[in-house]
């Protein structure tokens, strides 16, 4: 008999995890944010080219008339449809699923906390994220630095204007890797994850904001004080670990449809799997979603970091290889 039946998280860690869940629910109860649930098994999938949805099969009659369903990779689309339906401020704690994401800090099935605040922009939401995580991580406050400043500081390059070729040269100076790519964002992500993130560890908790406009995903695009187009997007890093991703949400249905199309094109060009896009999200935005900011946070990672652990299996009772 192997030891694979046994939980990898200690009872002490599971207690801490449950305590963090209780703190989160208390936090949102006090602030009048409604706890909701949206489907885990959906008819459409996320469009992000580098998030691969796990497909599953639904049979209206057992064994017959198979229909494709997709395990959600984030509750974003469903929650936005609730916002457009008039839900007001909402939060959700749910499982999310992603193909291929297994490692020390990844589990293909993980727990996400996601919330939306009508009337907030991303800067106000950063303050609220800070208010939630500071007591859990036992920190005073979070630093705030723009994506541009970060690249200027650590790599002496302007991430908004540098060409793919320039970024490739820079990446190869720091990273030994066999890669050819004309997509600037792939080089930026590589430099961010391999060079900058490890250095952020010494800064404690850091909000990075004003991402390149090409990395807006579902965030609005605005112009910064230098006249540079930037995404109204932020991420929170703690101990060099990516912990949360937030947007001042795109509410323009036509722009949303255009970005879906762009993702489909990129998937086609790179030979990535094609999945049905969520036209119901586009319909919801066209019907009118309130101006709002939203953020998604990895709860396994939050718990891991609160416990000063370095591997997610310390806080997931039965991780993927034992699931």
């Amino acid at each position, binding site marked *: 008999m192997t030891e694979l039946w046994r939980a990898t998280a200690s009872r002490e860690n599971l207690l801490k995890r449950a305590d963090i869940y209780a703190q989160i629910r208390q936090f949102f109860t006090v602030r009048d944010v409604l706890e909701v649930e949206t489907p885990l098994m959906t008819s459409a999938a996320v469009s992000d080219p580098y998030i691969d949805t796990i497909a599953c099969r639904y049979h209206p009659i057992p064994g017959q008339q198979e229909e494709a369903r997709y395990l959600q990779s984030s509750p974003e689309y469903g929650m936005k449809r609730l916002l457009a339906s008039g839900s007001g401020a909402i939060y959700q704690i749910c499982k999310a699923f992603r193909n291929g994401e297994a490692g020390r800090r990844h589990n293909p099935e993980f727990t996400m906390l996601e919330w939306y605040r009508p009337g907030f922009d991303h800067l106000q939401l950063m303050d609220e994220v800070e208010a939630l995580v500071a007591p859990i991580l036992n920190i005073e406050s979070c630093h705030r630095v723009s994506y541009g400043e970060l690249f200027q500081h650590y790599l002496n390059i302007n991430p908004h204007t540098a060409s793919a070729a320039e970024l490739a040269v820079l990446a190869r100076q720091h990273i030994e890797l*066999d890669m050819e790519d004309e997509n600037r964002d*792939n080089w930026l992500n590589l430099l961010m994850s391999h060079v900058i993130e490890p250095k952020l560890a010494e800064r404690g908790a850091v909000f990075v904001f004003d991402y390149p406009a090409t990395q807006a995903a579902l965030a609005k695009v605005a112009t910064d004080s230098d006249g540079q187009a930037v995404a109204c997007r932020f991420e929170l890093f703690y101990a060099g670990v990516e912990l949360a991703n937030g947007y001042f949400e795109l509410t323009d249905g036509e722009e949303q449809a255009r970005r879906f199309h762009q993702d489909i094109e990129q998937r086609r060009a790179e030979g990535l799997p094609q999945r049905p896009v969520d036209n119901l999200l586009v319909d919801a935005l066209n019907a009118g979603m309130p101006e709002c900011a939203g953020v998604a946070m990895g709860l396994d990672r939050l718990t891991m970091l609160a416990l000063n652990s370095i591997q997610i299996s310390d806080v997931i009772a039965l991780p993927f290889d034992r699931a």
Partner: protein
Amino acid sequence: MCVNFAVVLISTSGYLLPIYIEIVMANYSSNQFKNGLKIMLDGDPCSMVDVEFVKPGKGQAFTRVKMKNLISGRTWERTFKSGESVEGADVMDTDMEYLYSDGEMWHFMDPNSYEQVAADSTAIGDAHLWLKEQDKCLVTLFNGNPISITPPNFVELKVTETDPGLKGDTAQGGSKPATLQSGAVVRVPLFIEEGEMLKIDTRTGEYVSRA
């Protein structure tokens, strides 16, 4: 894909027939990487010391590996794209008995098959400081040739030369150099005499106790 041909001589009715056996090394995809996996990189066998899956929420997936070159001993970081595959290395760790050195090569024997291999000074590295005939060592073979030797964690070696011991000084601090039968020079307590057997930790090169 790495293909090695081994020539094996098979005896049938008095004749020796050469038979070519094809040894095909497996390829490993980035998702199969794990600590201890031996692969070929730029012609050298390397071992994975630490494997980390790196993927920003919205970005591409990579596997960042701390590698050790098993020939040069150099460690460094190498990043692989998701799905990138590499060729496995025919590297094997074997327990072998140290026989002798002819001044140029160090000879080892597999105690089960009695097969002998000879390691050159590059493969031996600092291990020669701790070798004593008949001690068991870990011999790392690449395509059948030794590329590194790991002596036992603890060895017992005789002192061949040291300053005379100080009588009565058995507990107080203070140390002096002593040359051991293998040629290594270690710091030992003042009371140690020539001819004594000492227990040495080969990982640190430090004196542990009298043997």
